């Protein structure tokens, strides 16, 4: 009897068990990603995606592959692409935020980031030179992955440039039979067709004419019809116009022209839709914006003088371009079709504007304004009246703020801007057309804003918890009683996680 009791005691003592690794490591979720109807939080340590639907009683969870490192929403869909897996067995998890299902695709490489075309059909996976992986002895940064989000095919493509690593991915216009993509490197560009990834890419090295030094690609844009690729490079005041000529069964042939004669090229932008083939170039040295003919045959199709420091161009409304300089107060509107211009000097240094092209409004946020404007933070609403035959009349209306706008989101369809000041708990809605304001004060400082257009719900993210904290509110009603706060939602499904010792 005593021996039996002793053995029983041993059994119980050795069945103590130890704590596994499910709950011991700190968790650092990736940033929230928004689709049109949901928010997705990827928690790599727990191999889980937490999906928040505003009209569901609680967040849902979906199991992911291990090692998630970046999550990107796929435009025009409810999919979120997650790069995951180990360096030796990389994968791409496609999370459907509407159903919670996950499709896992083996990846040809442990890529660092993914870029999607505007229609969400094609994703290009690339490496980032700065993100080394100690478990890999070598990486070929000239290889990319091409993901077809309709067929779920993921293909490796070797670009074979003479440069070390990619810098940016530029998508051509969406066409039925092809999708041209340009990957920019420091010394050139590689162009391929995403619908035919088996064809070798077309390499276009960049070098200044007559110069021994290499130029780095700073910016690239496809023309509206995909016939041209325009490149802005360092040490060059000319715009590089690469003409792409269709070749049967191969990537388009490329011939390179250098166009433009201004000084201090700082920005290039596509001309308004329907314009002849060309490119807008902004020069701070010669203080001008020029509409260049892509063929180089015509000198300049249109031209406008600019105030000092104006360095950036953005499509604005119709045939109008908006020209401005971050950090300087001048804003110019230029009708490229007929040459009319209008300008205004705002009451403070500019940030990147929030554009509402359909309403012809641009909103600039200022941390400080001139003493005559009160000196404090403000929001400037820039608009243009083009009724006059020989000029554009620029208007600026100012919205005084209690704190500089830090978090921002917008709904272009309804022409609404949502913002919250730095360290503020109040969210403000601004109707851009009427400048009507409304606000709601939440229970914690707002760090980030997301608008879910399919649900008409605004999500205000608070930074109080590493496990997630946000408030969902209907911006049309701004009723606190109908809002919902989700705290620590990153811990959803904590008890239902797979045992890492059993899951491969």
């Amino acid at each position, binding site marked *: 009897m005593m021996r039996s009791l002793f053995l*029983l005691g041993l059994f119980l003592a050795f069945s103590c068990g130890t704590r596994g690794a499910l709950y011991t490591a700190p968790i650092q979720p990736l940033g929230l990603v928004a689709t049109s109807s949901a928010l997705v939080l990827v928690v790599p340590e727990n191999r889980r995606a937490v999906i928040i639907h505003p009209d569901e009683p609680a967040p849902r969870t979906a199991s992911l592959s291990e090692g998630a490192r970046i999550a990107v929403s796929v435009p025009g869909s409810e999919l979120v692409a997650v790069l995951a897996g180990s360096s030796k067995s990389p994968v791409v998890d496609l999370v459907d935020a509407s159903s919670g299902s996950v499709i896992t695709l083996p990846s040809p490489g442990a890529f660092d980031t993914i870029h999607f075309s505007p229609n969400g059909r094609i994703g290009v996976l690339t490496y980032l030179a700065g993100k080394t992986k100690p478990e890999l002895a070598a990486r070929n940064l000239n290889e990319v992955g091409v993901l077809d989000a309709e067929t779920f095919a993921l293909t490796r493509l070797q670009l074979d440039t003479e440069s070390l690593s990619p810098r940016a991915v530029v998508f051509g216009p969406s066409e039925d039979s092809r999708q041209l993509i340009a990957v920019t490197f420091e010394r050139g560009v590689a162009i391929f067709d995403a619908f035919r990834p088996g064809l070798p890419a077309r390499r276009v090295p960049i070098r200044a004419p007559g110069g021994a030094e290499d130029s780095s690609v700073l910016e690239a844009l496809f023309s509206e019809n995909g016939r041209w690729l325009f490149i802005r490079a360092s040490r060059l005041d000319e715009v590089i116009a690469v003409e792409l000529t269709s070749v049967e069964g191969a990537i388009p042939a490329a011939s390179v022209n250098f166009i433009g004669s201004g000084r201090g090229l700082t920005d290039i932008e596509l001309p308004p839709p329907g314009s002849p083939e060309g490119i807008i170039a902004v020069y701070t040295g010669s203080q001008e914006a020029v509409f260049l003919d892509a063929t180089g045959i015509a000198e300049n199709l249109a031209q406008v003088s600019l105030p000092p420091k104006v360095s950036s161009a953005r499509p604005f409304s119709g045939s109008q371009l908006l020209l401005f300089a971050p950090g300087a107060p001048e804003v110019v509107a230029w009708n490229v079709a007929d040459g009319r211009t209008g300008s205004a000097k705002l009451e403070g240094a500019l940030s990147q504007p929030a554009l509402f092209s359909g309403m012809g409004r641009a909103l600039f946020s200022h941390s400080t304004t001139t003493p005559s404007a009160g000196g404090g933070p403000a929001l400037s609403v820039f608009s243009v009246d083009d009724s006059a035959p020989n000029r554009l009349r620029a208007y600026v209306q100012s919205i005084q703020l209690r704190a500089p706008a830090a978090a921002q989101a917008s709904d272009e369809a309804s022409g609404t801007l949502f913002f919250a000041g730095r360290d503020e708990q109040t969210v403000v809605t601004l109707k851009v057309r009427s400048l009507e304001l409304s606000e709601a004060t939440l229970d914690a400082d707002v760090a980030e804003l997301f608008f879910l257009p399919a649900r008409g719900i605004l999500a205000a993210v608070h930074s109080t918890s590493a496990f997630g904290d946000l408030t969902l509110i209907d911006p049309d009603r701004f009723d606190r009683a109908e809002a919902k706060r989700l705290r620590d939602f990153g811990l959803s499904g904590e008890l239902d996680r797979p045992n890492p010792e059993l899951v491969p």
Partner: protein
Amino acid sequence: MNRFLLCVTLFSSSLAHAELPNVSLSVGAQTQVVTGRDFDLVGNDDHFMRLRLGAAYALHPPVGRLDLEAAYVDGLKSSTLHQAMKAQLGLRGFEVGALYRYPLHRHLEPYARLGTGYDWGVLVVGEGRLEETVANPFGSALFGAQLPMQLADRGTKDPSVVFDLGVGYTLRPEYAFHRLTPKTASPLPPDSVPNQAVDFGSLGLSGITYRLQLALRI
């Protein structure tokens, strides 16, 4: 009718031959071994030890003894969650059971026990950041031995101290913590933004059970 008469006859017989009934009061530890990995949320090991306060009333059938038990059991298990906050599970409840013991020897009474009860499981994360209480019934079966030590040696009716060691299994349905919400010490302002629940999932708490207790039988 015949069965009824038989039961009455046996019960009357036991009363006629029984000694005065024993009452025992017990205090001890009841430990459950939970090996599911989800229990690691609140435990650094697989043992969930709880305090047990019980009382029993002994019946004297013709052979052996039949103790009708009732007890209150309460315990707490906690650990650190993701190195950031505490996660704590409190499990308290009541149980009743019937324990049949056979006096094999003066100081040895092996037994078999069946019990049932009701527990309230309170999961608290982050000291009130998220909390939920879930209640469930349970059932248990134990085998063990009691070692009575009489305090005096004047007869079988003398009080005795009883050491009790039993091992068995407790079966519980999964505790579904699907609606954890923040709980604060003071009431929230009336116009606070309502909190939405967080679904943690389900926690399994069935497992091998053993108890070690000391009873005073009078």
